[in-house]
């Protein structure tokens, strides 16, 4: 009955299959499931739909799955600064659906919250709204967006207890808790597994009900994309 798994490989055992939809947490490389992504590469599953704000950076994160040609479709907000992605896109090897970042986040939140569709101002009058239902509420036009769900979410937390309660650290929180609630199976890697009672019940970012499997991160490189220093 324990949710704690001994290794990233074991934590992903029996939940990977060709053609599945995977949500992967993180904003750029911050809050990336660094230890889980390489196991998906190793498993060699193909034809994936991946939902993530970005698609990794040269050599890191989801870039690995691009390199191994495992991703068929990417639902993301920003895929710049990624030459491999560009090449695959231009050669027709990968499909991309770009979302405004906030719409992406809310679609994922809606997937976890049982809300199949919602209205937003974001994208009204732009190509994002093309082909979508729009409607006027109180004199203002809104566009309707659908929820996003996944077969699997791989996310990165800071600490987890044995019940699967997870706490995230600073801006590494980002999409992680929302994705954790929107997938059929959620696998969380954390920097530290703590004992029951070590987390403050008033400060749980992702309650254990959303978490199926927990594993201690084997990689915590936390590569910085844009080191910026004040003089």
């Amino acid at each position, binding site marked *: 009955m324990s949710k704690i798994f001994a290794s990233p490989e074991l934590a992903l055992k029996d939940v990977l299959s060709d053609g599945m939809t995977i949500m992967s947490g993180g*904003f750029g490389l911050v809050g990336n499931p660094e230890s889980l992504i390489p196991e998906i590469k190793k498993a060699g599953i193909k034809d994936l739909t991946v939902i993530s704000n970005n698609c990794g950076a040269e050599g890191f994160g989801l870039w690995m799955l691009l390199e191994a040609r495992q991703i068929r479709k990417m639902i*993301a907000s920003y895929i710049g600064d990624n030459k491999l992605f560009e090449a695959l896109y231009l050669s027709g090897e990968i499909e991309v659906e770009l979302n405004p970042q906030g719409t992406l986040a809310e679609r994922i939140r809606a997937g976890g919250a049982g809300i199949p569709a919602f209205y937003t101002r974001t994208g009204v009058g732009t190509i994002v709204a093309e082909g979508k239902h729009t409607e006027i509420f109180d004199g203002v036009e809104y566009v309707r967006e659908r929820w996003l769900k996944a077969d699997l979410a791989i996310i990165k937390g800071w600490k987890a207890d044995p019940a699967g309660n997870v706490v995230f*650290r*600073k*801006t590494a929180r980002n999409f*992680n808790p929302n994705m954790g609630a929107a997938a059929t199976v959620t696998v969380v890697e954390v920097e530290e597994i703590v004992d029951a009672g070590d987390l403050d019940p008033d400060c749980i970012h992702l309650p254990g009900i959303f978490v199926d499997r927990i594993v201690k991160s084997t990689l915590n490189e936390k590569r910085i994309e*844009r080191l*910026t220093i004040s003089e």
Partner: protein
Amino acid sequence: MAWSREEIAARAAKELKKGFYVNLGIGIPTLVANYLNEDSAITLQSENGMLGMGPFPRREEVDPDIVNAGKQTVTELPTSSYFSSADSFAMIRGGHIDASILGAMEVAANGDIANWTVPGKMAKGIGGAMDLVAGVKKVIVVMEHTTKAGKSKILKRCTLPLTGAAVVELVITDLGVFECDKKNRQFNLIELAPGVSLEEVHEKTEAPLHTEGFVQ
């Protein structure tokens, strides 16, 4: 002398009222932070999930888990808070941010803005720009007045795919400050950069520009 990038940022900072919550885009907008002092009590929001953003870290302060929306390392303040992406954009979409300062490729007299993609080139992404222009109370654009090729970026109508329709209130360029007068489909000149003539700004502005009665 037209305004430098730093001077554009300094001028933009003057638009921010005491106590404002503000989101700054990448490029010139990021420089605006340099012109905010403690008295101004401005709080910076970063759409990746942070409110109360501090300056760039000293080398020994760098924390890879604290970045801004441009993925640059930043610092936290004693009153900072972190939240999820969904909560961050709820804050933006819900109209709680007082002002957003963004760059643009084109701005039109009807308040349209284009700043995310150029046809024929592969789009890098949308990021948070569409959410910001749609949700924030006041959208201020800072940019060079013309392209490198000398073409006006202040237009009667945008030619590039839009980021938002009828959302911009104010544009600050190297030549001056311009208010979007959506009703009259024109820009109103608010201020000229020192040494810039009315003739020059008229010449470099494709959009209808109202300067009548303007006194330098």
